[in-house]
């Protein structure tokens, strides 16, 4: 059979990982038709996907994640892959919060690939040392360190210019100031009282304060350029998910010595996750369906999980994997993933479309991003606008 896979893994590591998957499938006698659409964090890919589905020509699998999976399933275009999941015992291999996301009405419709931790703080220790600051663990410490860096003529926080970057920062602040409970209530359940409550006020104030520690050239900057600033020591820190690690490694830096990964201030006990997954579409051709099932199986296979996540910088979604080939950051992440899952502090990342339907996500992102960029918007104003954005249907 043939699998056509729509994805946006076009960059070095990811592409290698995808190539590995392709190879495995080809070994099983299937054909792999690559449908890579890069750009805009998958926006273009989504557009293509929709047209393909509308023209009655859906691919076998597509990179879809978070609540979007449910939305697609609701349109009735996704296939049921329960047989694979049962055979491979996915229910046992996945944390419940993840496996729930892969199911629609109790049936598996997608296969998860990896877990990214989003609430990381990346630090250039050299820069901190020069400024005489110490690694911050709370937001107050962060500001102290930031002031020191500023004095030393170093940009404290490297920041880029897309709304998801603004929101990544916002998430980390919310988690750090409000904690996991608040985060869930406000940003996952979208509880109006919490959103308009005093805790949110504090979060927004802190968030805005963080902006003071970025440079004014941030808008329009790609995240990896921001990372490069940390690498070069132009900036001291960056709030970014674990994919930033790839940049450091590619620049020949070693974790722990040349750069440090630490949970975002105040969020050491929590974990904002971002799980990539492949949704499986209903197909007509039986041979292709077989190939599609094979694909689902291979995605969850330990080999692939290890290989892929080594390339991608994330950690396997499959529990109980051996982590010895991974670096320290990944190891820490894997450990926290299991721990926080138990403690109930494993929370989905809104910035990466894990928490709420895309419409709501977009609306909230708009407000937060506007609040970040527009110095005239007041905190109260932002709060009420977030509340109304949360009501988006």
């Amino acid at each position, binding site marked *: 059979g043939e699998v056509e896979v729509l994805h946006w893994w076009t960059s070095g590591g990811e592409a290698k990982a995808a190539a590995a998957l392709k190879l495995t499938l080809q070994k099983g006698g299937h054909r792999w038709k690559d449908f890579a659409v890069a750009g805009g964090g998958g926006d273009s890919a989504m557009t293509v996907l929709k047209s393909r589905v509308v023209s009655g020509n859906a691919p076998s699998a597509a990179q879809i994640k978070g609540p979007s999976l449910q939305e697609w399933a609701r349109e009735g275009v996704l296939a049921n892959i329960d047989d694979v999941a049962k055979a491979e015992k996915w229910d046992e291999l996945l944390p419940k919060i993840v496996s729930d996301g892969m199911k629609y009405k109790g049936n598996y419709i997608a296969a998860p690939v990896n877990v990214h931790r989003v609430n990381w703080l990346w630090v250039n220790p050299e820069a901190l040392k020069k400024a005489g600051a110490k690694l911050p663990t709370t937001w107050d410490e962060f500001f102290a360190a930031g002031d020191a860096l500023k004095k030393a003529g170093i940009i404290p926080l490297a920041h880029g210019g897309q709304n998801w970057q603004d929101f990544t920062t916002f998430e980390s602040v919310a988690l750090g100031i409000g904690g996991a409970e608040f985060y869930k209530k406000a940003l996952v359940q979208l509880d109006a009282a919490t959103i308009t409550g005093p805790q949110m006020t504090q979060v927004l104030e802190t968030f805005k304060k963080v902006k003071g520690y970025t440079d004014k050239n*941030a*808008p329009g900057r790609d995240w990896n350029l921001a990372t490069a600033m940390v690498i070069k020591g132009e900036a001291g820190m960056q709030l970014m998910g674990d994919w930033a690690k790839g940049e450091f490694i590619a620049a020949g830096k070693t974790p722990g010595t040349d750069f440090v990964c630490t949970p975002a201030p105040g969020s050491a006990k929590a974990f904002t996750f971002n799980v990539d997954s492949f949704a499986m579409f209903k197909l007509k051709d039986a041979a292709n369906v077989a190939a599609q099932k094979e694909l689902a199986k291979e995605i969850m296979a330990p080999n692939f999980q290890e290989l892929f996540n080594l390339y991608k910088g994330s950690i396997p979604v499959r529990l109980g994997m051996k982590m010895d080939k991974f670096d320290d950051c990944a190891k820490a992440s894997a450990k926290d993933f299991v721990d926080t899952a138990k403690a109930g502090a494993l929370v989905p990342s809104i910035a990466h479309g894990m928490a709420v339907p895309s419409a709501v996500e977009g609306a909230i992102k708009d407000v937060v991003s506007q609040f970040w*960029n527009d110095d005239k918007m007041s905190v109260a104003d932002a709060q009420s606008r977030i509340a109304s954005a949360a009501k988006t249907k």
Partner: protein
Amino acid sequence: MSAPSALRTPWLPKLVVAPSFVLALVFIYGFIAWNGYLSLSASRLLPNYTFAGFEQYVNLFESDRFRVALKNMLVFGGLFIGGAMALGLMLAILLDQKIRAEGLLRTIYLYPMAISFIVTGTAWKWMLNPGLGLEHLMHQWGFESFSFDWLVNPEKAIYCVAIAGIWQSAGFVMALFLAGLRGIDESIIKAAQVDGASQPRIYWRILIPSLRPVFFSTLMVVSHLAIKSFDLVMALTAGGPGYATDLPATFMYAMSFTRGQLGLGAASATVMLATVAAIVVPYLYSELRAKK
């Protein structure tokens, strides 16, 4: 002069335009109707034909982002259309002066059209970025007080989009005007010279008015570019900072394809088309009437 119209062969000319006309009806008006219906439907991720009333329009007009997008369309549209037309016309006139290196210069002015903005956007982003581009350069050259931070300023960023847009399309406008100028009968220019008109006045009073149909084409095409400057915004600012440089096209795209709010996207497209129609239809009408 009336065209040699009206004789009784007319089925042939009609037959020739018929396919295009049918295509236009189906693919333009059919799709507009389809889009119109979607805007009244409950569509989210994929088209869904259950009727939902005017809810999407209510949402749309409550949306601050859409208001910004509409305003940007007017600001950007005005600057871009005006700028590209003016600059294009000026370049065409300059090139019309029997310049020796015309071929080379023409290609230089035209080439921005050739390069996909997917990447040119990066170059522009660098050049306009205060920390990397012009401002940085001026600082390095010792002009410390020079400041050019429009790209990162939510109130000014849209001007940057306009600058890049003009840069990209002025060359094509020039080509259109140049083609028009090259079609004008030279004896009229001679007559104007004898009448004592200086070169600028010949252009202003004789040639440009003769270019009226070309003007019309150009205006249409540039407006088309303005409405479709999707790549441009995506590459340069991606709508940012915040959504300060959002345009209806990017808004619609984001809603329809990224956010799974197809209905809202359709509504925004309808509003945008209606806005355009409100401006364009009277112009079309007068322009085509004037021919008679």
